């Protein structure tokens, strides 16, 4: 170890402010970048899921309305026949 004790290590020969400012800024920047990358992956995957659910719902609704229409026309036809 180059320094005698912890306080001289923190003091950095009187340049403590500049040295620790640099190292702090670098750590913070890299950390923010990594957190952003990490959490945007999670957000994207949830987005895929919600989109999937939405598509399934749209499909189900379309099928339902199609069958409803079919039965409606079928009913009309049978109504027509009985009258």
């Amino acid at each position, binding site marked *: 170890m180059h320094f005698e004790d912890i306080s001289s290590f923190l003091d950095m020969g009187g340049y403590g402010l500049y040295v620790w400012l640099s190292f702090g800024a670098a750590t913070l920047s890299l950390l923010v970048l990594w957190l952003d990358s990490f959490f945007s*992956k999670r957000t994207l995957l949830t987005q*895929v899921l919600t989109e999937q659910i939405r598509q399934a719902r749209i499909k189900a609704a379309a099928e339902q309305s199609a069958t409803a229409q079919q039965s409606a026309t079928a009913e009309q036809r049978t109504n027509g026949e009985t009258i």
Partner: protein
Amino acid sequence: MWKWLHPYAKTERTYHLCQRLLPWFSVLGLAVILFATVWGLAYAPTDYQQSEAYRIIYIHVPSAVLSKSLYSAMAIAAFIGLVWQVKTSFMAMMALAPIGATVTFVSLVTGAAWGKPMWGTWWEWDARLTSQLILLFLFLGVISLYKAFEDKQQAGKAAGVMAIVGVINLPIIHYSVEWWNTLHQGATIMKFDKPSMPTEMLWPLLLSILGWALVSAAIFLLRMQNEIIQRELRRPWVQNLANKNASLSEGK
């Protein structure tokens, strides 16, 4: 034939390749960067001229070196994307840009924190500092140009052209300390000569450059995956992936 053969398999394979490499680069990068930083901060000898303030070198130089390397990598990706129409290449370009911007920002901040005690000023409009600031703006420009287009193929082309044009700034940064009178000192290790630095100082510096490179690579892999997911949102394999991921996190 290539393009015709793998239009679907390609991004999926790239994704899984990233997934496989990611833990290695993350762990190794973190280990090397921590080791080198502790070595540089606490064990390397002091400088006879700048005393302990010189220790800023152990982040300033790696970040500055990486800023230029990442820009070159981004420009190469842009070139491949433009010439061979590889869309994965544009994704790589966009994965690299934010990392490059962050690293350039770090080099500027640490440079300012070093300039204050040594030159007596946080900032000076001289050649090296200004060209490095332009590099930051080029990174930000590429990112914002890409975001400005709705059609991502178009966006990739426009941002790619900008990235390639910006390469002109790299030799300017490198030679700025020779071409102009500047406060910034000349090259210490990146020159065709023996490095003008004792080995006990040089080793932690080289290691920290390696550490920064590995960490940047790890973040690149992660961001590359994000770019792929974003572009392939509706592909079945991405949907399977999301499902698997959801069931995994539920299981925890």
